[in-house]
């Protein structure tokens, strides 16, 4: 019974194993990025950047159809341009970064929808918006795993400056020249992981696997290390559970994965020991000093 429900789909079908590998790769790369997005109060920035990737991927699609390379490069370029341009405008003008990012992503979202709808069929539009986690080929898997590996390495190197950039940016600027480098590298990581997520889960869902596990993790751990581990665990378990649900009940897999992550978030809000609803309202004995 348990074998049939949980292991058989992956044992019997290659596309399920591929989907699982792809999702785990995204979980490894995207969730730490999501944790830092959340800690920097940039969760909505991730959302904005995900939309900004659309026109680039759409232009890639126009040039060479549903090609992995063209859509990846298009998405990366569009995401970087929006991230850098909005960051640049925020640094050199009086406009704050959230406002300038919103301006850029609205422009590129409109552009992307326009491009896809002038040329694409409905099937292609669905592909771009919701991804194709059940049809990942070798090239796509290698891309996802490479992006995850690069993300982990870069995060390991940049960990301390990134923590300081979040906790006390003014201090980082006073002791180190790495502040701007850290910020821009981090934005590049966000874009890379969104492009990876876009292939599997689509532009609309990619940001979900980034932010929801991080938000859930906040209710389970009060340290950065714990936060990273919990977030990855939530993302990985959501991937497995989402794929199985989509297999057994014929649901679209991307939304199924994100919804499971959403349920994990909901449960964390209620039952999480660090500031969850129950923990906050339960009468507890306090420590005697």
């Amino acid at each position: 019974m348990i074998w049939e429900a949980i292991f058989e789909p992956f044992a019997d079908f290659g596309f399920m194993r591929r989907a699982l590998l792809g999702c785990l790769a995204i979980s490894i790369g995207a969730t730490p990025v999501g944790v830092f997005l959340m800690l920097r109060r940039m969760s909505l920035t991730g959302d904005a950047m995900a939309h900004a990737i659309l026109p680039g991927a759409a232009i890639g699609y126009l040039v060479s159809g549903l090609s992995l390379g063209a859509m990846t490069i298009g998405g990366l370029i569009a995401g970087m341009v929006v991230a850098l341009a909005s960051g640049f405008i925020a640094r050199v003008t009086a406009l704050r970064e959230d406002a300038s990012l919103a301006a850029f992503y609205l422009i590129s979202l409109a552009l992307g929808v326009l491009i896809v709808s002038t040329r694409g069929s409905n099937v292609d539009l669905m592909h771009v918006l919701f991804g194709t986690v059940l049809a990942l080929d070798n090239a796509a898997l290698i891309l996802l795993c490479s992006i995850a590996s690069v993300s982990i390495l870069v995060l390991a190197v940049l960990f301390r400056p990134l923590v300081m950039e979040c906790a006390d940016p003014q201090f980082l600027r006073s002791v180190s020249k790495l502040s701007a480098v850290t910020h821009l590298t981090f934005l590049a990581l966000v874009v890379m992981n969104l492009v990876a997520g876009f292939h599997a889960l689509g532009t609309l869902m990619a940001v979900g696997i980034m932010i929801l596990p991080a938000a859930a993790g906040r209710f389970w751990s009060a340290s950065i290390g714990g936060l990273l581990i919990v977030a990855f665990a939530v993302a990985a378990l959501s991937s497995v559970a989402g794929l199985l649900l989509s297999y057994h009940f014929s649901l679209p897999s991307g939304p199924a994965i994100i919804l499971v992550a959403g349920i994990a978030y909901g449960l964390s809000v209620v039952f999480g020991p660090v500031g969850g609803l129950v923990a906050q309202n339960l009468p507890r004995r306090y420590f005697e000093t």
Partner: protein
Amino acid sequence: MTPALSFQNLTLGYDRLPAVHQLETEIVEGSLTAIVGPNGAGKSTLLKGVTGALAPLEGQIEISGFDDEEIAYLPQQSDIDRSFPITVFDLVAMGLWREVGSFGWLRRGQRSRVDAAIAAVGLTGLESRPIGSLSGGQMQRVLFARLLLQDAKLVLLDEPFTAIDARTMADLIEVVRNWHSEGRTVLAVLHDHETVNSHFPQTLMLARELVAHGPTGQVLTSENQMRARQMCEACASTPHVCGKDAA
């Protein structure tokens, strides 16, 4: 008596509006100086100018005897995210950034120096507490511990004792006096004249332009304070163009 800082016809400001105007004076190396003056007198602006965060509109600040990196600065409202999940120990340890850098490990000797700094501000036992659980006074102690580890030759404090309890203030003043006895140059923006009188030998009174600078007893006179208030009010009501284009 070598000058650590020399302000030469220094004008600092925002959007062409001068907040510090044609300041001409010197801060002696190893001195303990209070910067006083009415609101809007340019006190914080002057500190920002020294850190290099604000470029002069005119004139210059000459720093001699040490590098830019040997300046430690405690801003008035630090933009520390108090909800960030970082412990007291880790935040204080960041004071060693110049030694440890972005990637180095904390060696055992360095860890004990962090412990010593935490002990020096009276926070022993709270090392593993997240900073979100600290009171305002405790947080200020944490920031002073980090300043201690920065081992800076010039320490800039912007209203370090505002909104903290008397006990914390007394402890932190002790830290400042220690810096002074170790020969470091300390510049502190302060409001409370009683504190200035009893602990700061030198005072620089500012009202956009220099009002007076010298031994505290000679500077903190009611005459000077009256003059400073008048100068600030006069300047606020008549904005005028500064710099080379000025008629």
